[in-house]
């Protein structure tokens, strides 16, 4: 059973400046004896008292202002940060797509990057070799896959990263906002694949600022504010509260038709 459970979790970042990182300060601080609170490391509470329960089949959108803790929450859910207080339990194979430049070596080819990303996400080399053709077809990158990654545009990198994570059957898919950089035609293709993926198994958590994208992918939402969960509920409720207006009112008829159930897309489905 794929699930993410988080109980009263907080994530505090110690802010080390040159002084507090140094051994000298630590040693002398002990000797001097009177440096009290000012000798302590300042802390930023990036997440405060988060309690969440995300279950199989959930498609959760993350909304909130910049710096509200969306990316940190995603990293907590990925298991990259273990909570400094509270606890979390992640059951299932996690595939995060956060920063697209990271985990990709600009000097090596697209194929080799596919391999490395796959291995990082827990696949074996053989499993990845089987999937390479499929990824090549999905990303439509063609001969570019043999070129070094530094020749790729941002959108092409997104395609590659999405191609890898959607091909490996992850159970938990975590997407940060960066993936908006692809063109509309590819987005509609990716949408199909992601929906398919979420339907097959697992759950999706997607941080994004675009109403349309959220409506396309998610059915529930979490509103993050100042490191805390401000509201959690159905997508429409949360977006209405967050934006101050009902976003569904302003959707184009096309989009409404699309999310209304029939997933068959027109060619310009991503408008």
């Amino acid at each position, binding site marked *: 059973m794929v699930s993410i459970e988080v109980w009263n979790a907080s994530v505090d970042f110690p802010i080390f400046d040159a002084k507090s990182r140094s051994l000298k300060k630590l040693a002398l601080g002990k000797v001097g004896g009177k440096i009290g609170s000012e000798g302590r490391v300042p802390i930023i509470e990036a997440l405060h008292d988060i309690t969440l329960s995300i279950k199989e089949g959930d498609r959760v959108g993350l909304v909130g202002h910049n710096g509200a803790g969306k990316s940190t929450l995603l990293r907590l859910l990925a298991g990259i*940060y273990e909570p400094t207080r509270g606890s979390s339990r992640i059951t299932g194979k996690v595939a995060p797509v956060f920063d697209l430049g990271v985990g990709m070596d600009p000097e090596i080819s697209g194929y080799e990057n596919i391999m490395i990303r796959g291995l990082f996400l827990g696949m074996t080399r053989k499993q990845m070799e089987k999937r390479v053709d499929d990824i090549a077809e999905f990303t439509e990158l063609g001969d570019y896959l043999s070129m070094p990654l530094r020749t790729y545009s941002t959108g092409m990198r997104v395609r590659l990263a999405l191609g890898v994570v959607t091909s490996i059957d992850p159970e938990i898919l975590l997407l940060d906002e960066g993936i908006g950089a692809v063109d509309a035609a590819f987005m509609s293709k990716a949408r199909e694949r992601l929906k398919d993926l979420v339907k097959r198994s697992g759950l999706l958590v997607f941080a994004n600022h675009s109403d349309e994208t959220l409506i396309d992918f998610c059915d529930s939402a979490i509103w993050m504010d100042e490191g805390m969960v401000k509201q959690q509920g159905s997508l429409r409720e949360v977006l209405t509260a967050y934006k101050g207006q009902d976003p569904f009112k302003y959707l184009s008829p096309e989009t409404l038709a699309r999310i209304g159930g029939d997933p068959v897309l027109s060619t310009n489905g991503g408008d």
Partner: protein
Amino acid sequence: MRDAWQHRELWGHLGWQDIKQRYRRSVIGPLWITISMGSTALALGLLYSTLFNQDIATFLPYVTVGFVIWNFILGVITEGTDVFIANEGLIKHLPAPMTVHVLRMVWRQLLFFAHNLAVYVIVLIVFFPALTKPYHMEGDDFMHPGITWTILLVIPAMALVVVNAVWVALLFGIISTRFRDIPPVINSFINLIFFMTPIVWHTGVLNKVTNGEGNWRILIAELNPLYHFVEIVRAPLIGHAQYWHHWVVVGAFTIGGWALAFVALRNYRARVSYWV
């Protein structure tokens, strides 16, 4: 640790990739390191064999092998302190066990070591006749047996060194990530340690200088843990007499070091992603 083993394909591949990377834009890639190391070993071997009045045919192999091993130890220590800092991006963006980064680095260093062994092979071929019969190092009052089947001992010896490399990188890596003063401290002391370790000089010289009196001077070498690590690998490769106390010291360091590394790993593993 079990996780890291499951990820062996990952760090294995990444380590290879690092090596291939060096070949990519230069014709002979990492062999540049081998060439520079070979010429340094040659020059130092010639110089010091004259200074210490040693036979070049046995002293040059001694310096070369010591240098190859030292390069591995140096790489592990200096890159080990930097291992988590350098992988900040990967640590913050992809969930993988911390040990993956360490094992990748050690594996890469081991591949460099394998490249550098080419220099040893050349030296071995050139001085084969001198090395395969018993010979005498200036200052020792006994004969070294020469290369025999004991050369096979290099395999367990190198395995032990690698096992130690992993805990060194884990422990130093975690401490350095928290306290950024550590890498420069280590980098400045490592050169001193190189000259303190019997690599370009031989412990027999200590005996000779003191005429057998003041044996405490030999402690300069014996108290240096790196001497024992170098010696267990070097002795079989050039047919020197073996001493079991080197193995005992290395064994003790393996156990003690891993105990420390396990404590650090248990308590601070989760903190590394906050500190980088």
